[in-house]
């Protein structure tokens, strides 16, 4: 608490004139205006994990769009004379440890053995189809299924959970019991029924997903809405005479959106897996179309001999999962009001 008195003495008189107090009249707020989303985005940007996830997703989405067109092969074009070739990539073929030189795990150069001149970047499958094209084509379908699942989550899960919680009481009770029943019914039966009625393929898979796929989402939304609907801002809106529709649309949904997005991040991988399981039991996508799940499943049998058939789609499926999980976790942090301020 010592003071440097001498120095203070030197202060000139004009310094002690009243300052311009305009500032007092105007309320100020610190910092630039940031909306909720902007704020969340700002925090997300600072999260290296989430950004990595986002970038991976973007790259994969991009590849799923342009990947199949990057070489001259189509996803269905068979040529048994070049079946089951391992991956071979120009330039990288010279880097031995990458294993992109067309040599299989038993050390034979399959390209040489089969007299193939072309390069197949991810190798070929049992029909001699280009894996690169198929894998990205499969990624496209898997992502499509994922997007559809997310959509179902949005449409059914959000509405169901929202209605259940908003109306509460008996409605809630009944709706929740219905969920219990839905979970109790073996959905494989439903899937088979869908396949019978609508033919196998994406549509049936999506329908199958819509039977119970949204339950998790509805639970989350319900929990959130239960919490939110007693919040004071909702009460405020009601005292202003807001209708239920307005309360739901303007207040509840926007506030659960964060949670919804996060949940979607986890729904997406689940949907991709669900399709892979269907492939495993033979009820997946309609060949020769492929999904990542069905490609892995086809290649799985030859895991020990032709690991490349499983390797590439597995890497991509893993990347997708990791990316969505990282992004999901990042979003959770970014949307977490407790970490705000």
């Amino acid at each position, binding site marked *: 608490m010592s003071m440097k008195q001498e120095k203070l003495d030197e202060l000139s008189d004009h310094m002690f004139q009243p300052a311009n107090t305009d500032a007092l009249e105007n*309320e100020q707020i610190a910092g630039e*205006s940031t909306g909720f989303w902007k704020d969340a985005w700002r925090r997300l940007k600072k999260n290296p994990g989430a950004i990595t996830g986002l970038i991976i997703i973007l790259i994969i989405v991009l590849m799923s769009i342009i990947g199949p067109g990057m070489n001259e092969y189509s996803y269905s074009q068979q040529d048994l004379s070049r079946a089951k070739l391992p991956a071979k990539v120009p330039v990288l073929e010279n880097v031995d440890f990458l294993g992109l030189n067309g040599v299989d795990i038993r050390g034979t150069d399959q390209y040489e053995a089969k007299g193939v001149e072309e390069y197949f970047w991810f190798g070929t499958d049992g029909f001699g189809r280009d894996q690169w094209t198929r894998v990205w084509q499969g990624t496209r379908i898997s992502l499509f299924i994922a997007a559809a699942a997310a959509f179902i989550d949005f449409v059914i899960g959000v509405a169901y959970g929202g209605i259940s919680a908003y109306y509460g009481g008996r409605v809630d009770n009944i709706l929740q019991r219905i969920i219990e029943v839905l979970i109790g019914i073996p959905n494989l039966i439903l899937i088979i029924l869908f396949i019978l009625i609508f033919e196998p393929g994406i549509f049936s898979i999506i329908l199958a997903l819509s039977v119970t796929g949204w339950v998790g989402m509805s639970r989350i939304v319900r929990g959130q809405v239960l919490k939110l609907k007693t919040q004071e801002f909702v*009460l405020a809106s009601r005292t202003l*005479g*807001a209708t239920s529709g307005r309360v739901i649309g303007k207040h509840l949904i*926007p506030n659960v959106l964060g949670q919804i997005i996060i949940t979607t991040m986890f729904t997406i991988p689940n949907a991709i897996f669900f399709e892979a399981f269907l492939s495993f039991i033979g009820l997946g996508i309609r060949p020769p179309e492929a999904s990542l799940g069905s490609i892995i499943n086809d290649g799985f049998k030859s895991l020990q001999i032709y690991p490349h058939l499983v390797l590439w789609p597995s890497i991509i499926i893993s990347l997708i999962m990791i990316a969505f999980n990282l992004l999901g976790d990042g979003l959770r942090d970014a949307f977490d009001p407790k970490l705000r301020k």
Partner: protein
Amino acid sequence: MSNQEKLLEIKNLKQHFKVGKGTVKAVDGLTFDIYKGETFGLVGESGCGKSTTGRTIIRLYNATDGEVIFNGEDVHGKKSAKELKKFNRKMQMIFQDPYASLNPRMTVSDIIAEGIDIHGLASSKKARMDKVHELLETVGLNKEHANRYPHEFSGGQRQRIGIARALAVDPEFIIADEPISALDVSIQAQVVNLMKKLQREKGLTYLFIAHDLSMVKYISDRIGVMYRGEIVELAESEELYRNPLHPYTQSLLSAIPLPDPEYERSRKRKIYDPEKHLSENGEKRVLREVTEGHWIACTEEEFNKFNVTV
């Protein structure tokens, strides 16, 4: 005061909640009037039913029993959607928690304009914005704030936004449920000053709920003291502070610490023992007017005693 016009009459209001197997009698037989242009303070310990009273009055809850008569009309009677809407414009509420009472996903202008939108009070987008700007100025904020989000504001500013929202529909009566208890001391004054100013300018009537008695006394004309869902004492604020009759009121007053060390050194707290007090006499205590405008829940016997001493 009795010559004043009654704006709100509350008669034997009851609000019971079902919780699991039992019921919570949050409000259990309230009767009081609020006059036009006054501020009626409602104090009492946490959980005594203050918020419930406020919310029941504004119909956020449907009353279990009793009447709320606003401008001569029973608020809790059957109402058409249209009538309800009309009612919603006349009575508004300011909430306790400035953080929870503003939708974090809406801009300030949308929050304030919500009532305008619902009731179609603006003919055009421009009119709507003008009204919002005017309201912002009324509560001491400025235009630039319109497009910002609640989390960018301090507690006091948020509370003022809440007030602006309530004012947007030109209400006659505002229920303020602990509007300052979540705020910093230095900011409480902003809000209280604003409320006073608005009352003067617009002739508003307030129901001011709080547990901070010094602030309640400062702002209220009359004060009701609640205890366990009932009003135990009701008087003009000066009178109540000068001459608290009910032992609970006394204990409440004696517990307030004041920013005055001298006084604090000598303050003695009175302890209210409800078990003892309530079991003293089997008779149910009812509100009786001891002196003009000073009501107290008491037994016949106590009433006579009060009459003598006063």
